[in-house]
């Protein structure tokens, strides 16, 4: 598996300082009016507030969240199931491992036109893109988690007479849980990426459509406002999974 440095927005003191610094520099650069492509942070905030209050943002975000759920929930369920099976059954792993790894790093954005050919220009394409972007990383992490189960724990449970079902429920699943949740967190971030790519390419609904629209109409502060919103959605998705992690993995 490709080693990943897990994204953990470090909102310690350094985090706040870094972000405050960024905002200050951004504001100054914007005020200097060097180029129209760098509006000040405050003008972006104003634009963001405008989009929020006139309902544009909520409408787009609503559609985006819909696609996100329609793609990510099946990806999570099927991804964890397949990952568990691949972790446990060697034959399945040998058959699928290479393909899953290749697909995890493949430029799946190239498949969006194929998805459009399949489903037509509809938000189903976005959900399918979300699925493709998040599925494989969830499979790989789940499988790695199962494979990382301490052998002695398995032997211990077997020595007390545990059968296959008990091994799964009492050993493999809890042992893999941290890796599964990490996979879901990475998958959630990937899902938002897939959502944006899909929406931009079909340019019909959601945040992605707004990005294209404001880009084409040179509404730069609004464009920035949507970029920031998309980033916030990504961080929010990741944080949601992370709080589930904290609730479920108490023993570390």
């Amino acid at each position, binding site marked *: 598996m490709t080693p990943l440095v897990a994204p953990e927005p470090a909102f310690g003191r350094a985090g706040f300082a870094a972000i405050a610094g960024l905002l200050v520099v951004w504001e100054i650069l914007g005020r200097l009016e060097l180029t129209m492509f760098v509006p000040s942070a405050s003008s972006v905030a104003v634009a963001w507030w405008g989009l929020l209050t006139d309902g544009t943002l909520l409408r787009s975000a609503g559609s985006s969240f819909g696609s996100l759920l329609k793609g990510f929930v099946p990806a999570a369920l099927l991804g964890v199931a397949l990952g568990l099976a691949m972790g446990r059954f060697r034959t399945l792993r040998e058959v699928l491992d290479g393909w899953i790894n290749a697909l995890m790093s493949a430029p799946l954005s190239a498949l969006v036109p194929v998805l459009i050919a399949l489903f037509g220009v509809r938000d189903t394409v976005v959900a399918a893109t979300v699925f493709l972007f998040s599925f494989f990383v969830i499979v790989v992490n789940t499988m790695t988690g199962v494979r990382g189960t301490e052998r002695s724990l398995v*032997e211990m*449970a077997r*020595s*007390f007479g545990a059968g296959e079902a008990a091994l799964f429920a009492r050993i493999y699943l809890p042992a893999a*849980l941290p890796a599964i949740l990490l996979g879901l967190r990475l998958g959630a971030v990937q899902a938002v990426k897939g959502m944006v790519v899909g929406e931009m390419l079909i340019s019909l609904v959601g945040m992605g459509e707004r990005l294209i629209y404001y880009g084409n109409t040179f509404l730069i502060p609004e464009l920035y406002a949507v970029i920031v919103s998309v980033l916030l959605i990504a961080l929010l998705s990741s944080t949601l999974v992370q709080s589930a992690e904290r609730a479920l993995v108490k023993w570390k």
Partner: protein
Amino acid sequence: MSATLGIAIERLSKSFGAVQALADIEIQVKAGEFLALIGPSGCGKTTLLKCVAGLLPADAGRIVIGSRPVSGPGGREASLVFQDFALLPWATARENAEFGLLLRGAPAAERTEAARRALAKVGLAGSFEQAYPAQLSGGMQQRVGLARALAVNPQVLLMDEPFASIDEQTRRILQDDLLRLWSEERKTVVLVTHSMEEAIYLSDRVVVLSPRPGRVHRVLDVPLPRPRETLDVRASGEFARLVDELWQILKKMQ
């Protein structure tokens, strides 16, 4: 509680692919005996223990605990203690001690009761019950491992280098506690170890295995008086002589 059981290992052989790990192993462990297995690394002592536990099937020969031939893991007669403790990191000390009973389908109240008693036996009563393994020292973790093995009330304890990854001072205390438990509970113990002092200090007999394939090379009787935990046996000349005798056997084998 049923009577203590002996173990008969008869003409046991085991191979992994082309590598023969054990050849014609013949050992009789008496009921209530404390037996140590020692030998150079690669002599198959852990493999032998796993065969006795039913975790590995034998290629030839058989193992009988009491009157029941071992045919697979999960037998009620014996429980295992692991070198790396094999504690569930997501379970508290008490939940870990209950785990064997849980897998055997015991009702919750009975499990808790048995786990409490076992934890008390190994000196971990009270607030430690709710601690996760990561919050316990190595010595305390192995006490939990021992409590889990005792909670199912086995007649035989199979111990795979249980104190190998524990520091020397703690190890000596655990060894004494084990001896005390053994004299109270009168269980049959098979201990795999690579420490000559540990083998001599704890056991009635030491079985020396030779490597590749593992065979019974020598059996050394340990006629040291008991209870050794109170008699300061380590300081005796006889202890030193026995350790040296064991060393001479192992040295010639290299």
